[in-house]
């Protein structure tokens, strides 16, 4: 039997209906961006990091020693895999995570206060520098948190935890009138 495969976003059910206008504090859900995991072979951490950071439109997110999440806003998932294979083909394992992870972008003046309700890491601008990223626990869900702008934080979460994290974030952001929508 042949079935049509419908590619649905993990948060389609949560964000149905016409998009409402964004408030000051806004949660933007990334719609089909390319994400990949790069795990360097033993002893090649520095070489892989050099190769990856030489490309300006790839955003590197630190996960652990020799392990990164690479996010690209310009590539398709297939295009990103091809580029990463060329950059570090024999030096690292590259795995496509575009459908396995969901990217949430929290922005606004209260972003830190919202995140502080679930995250046990110092988010002060001096402690969590611009461009910094790390794996943390948000409530009970392990996420990758990175600071991409002055008051902008990006959260990358496993697809199966996305709905749960989304609900948690909306509860955490309720006193600040947090709004949510898919990115354009």
């Amino acid at each position, binding site marked *: 039997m042949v079935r049509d495969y419908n590619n649905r976003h993990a948060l389609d059910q949560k964000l149905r209906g016409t998009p409402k206008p964004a408030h000051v504090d806004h949660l933007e859900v990334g719609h089909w961006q390319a994400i990949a995991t790069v795990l360097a072979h033993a002893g090649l951490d520095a070489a892989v990091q050099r190769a990856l950071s030489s490309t300006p439109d790839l955003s590197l997110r630190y996960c*652990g020693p020799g*392990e990164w999440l690479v996010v690209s806003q310009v590539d398709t998932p297939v295009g990103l895999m091809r580029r990463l294979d060329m950059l570090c083909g024999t030096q690292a394992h590259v795995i496509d995570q575009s459908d396995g992870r969901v990217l949430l972008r929290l922005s606004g003046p209260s972003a830190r206060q919202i995140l502080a309700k679930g995250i*046990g890491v110092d988010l002060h601008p001096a402690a969590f520098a611009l461009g910094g990223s790390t*794996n*943390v*626990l948000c409530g009970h869900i*392990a996420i990758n948190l990175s600071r991409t702008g002055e008051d902008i934080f990006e959260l990358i979460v496993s697809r199966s935890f996305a709905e749960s994290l989304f609900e948690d974030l909306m509860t955490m952001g309720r006193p600040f009138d947090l709004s949510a929508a898919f990115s354009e």
Partner: protein
Amino acid sequence: MASLITCPHCGVRPKEEFTIRGDASLVRPAPSASDEAWHDYVYVRANPRGRTVEHWHHVAGCRRFLVVERDTVTHEVYSVVDGATAAREAQR
């Protein structure tokens, strides 16, 4: 219990991000060692009061095994080292 652990890769983190995986001071016996030695290694554990060395797994962070030296009475943390580093030093 010690509530803040300074992970060598991630910085200061709450203990909720970790799982404790047991005593790190045990030495694996040789394959030809006696049954008693293996029984002790696999099953027998002390429940020490004071300084202990343990394996902690940073599950929600860098996912590395760490060797944490802490005090079970005062909850003080003396040192946190990456498991691979600790193993390399032990071999010397």
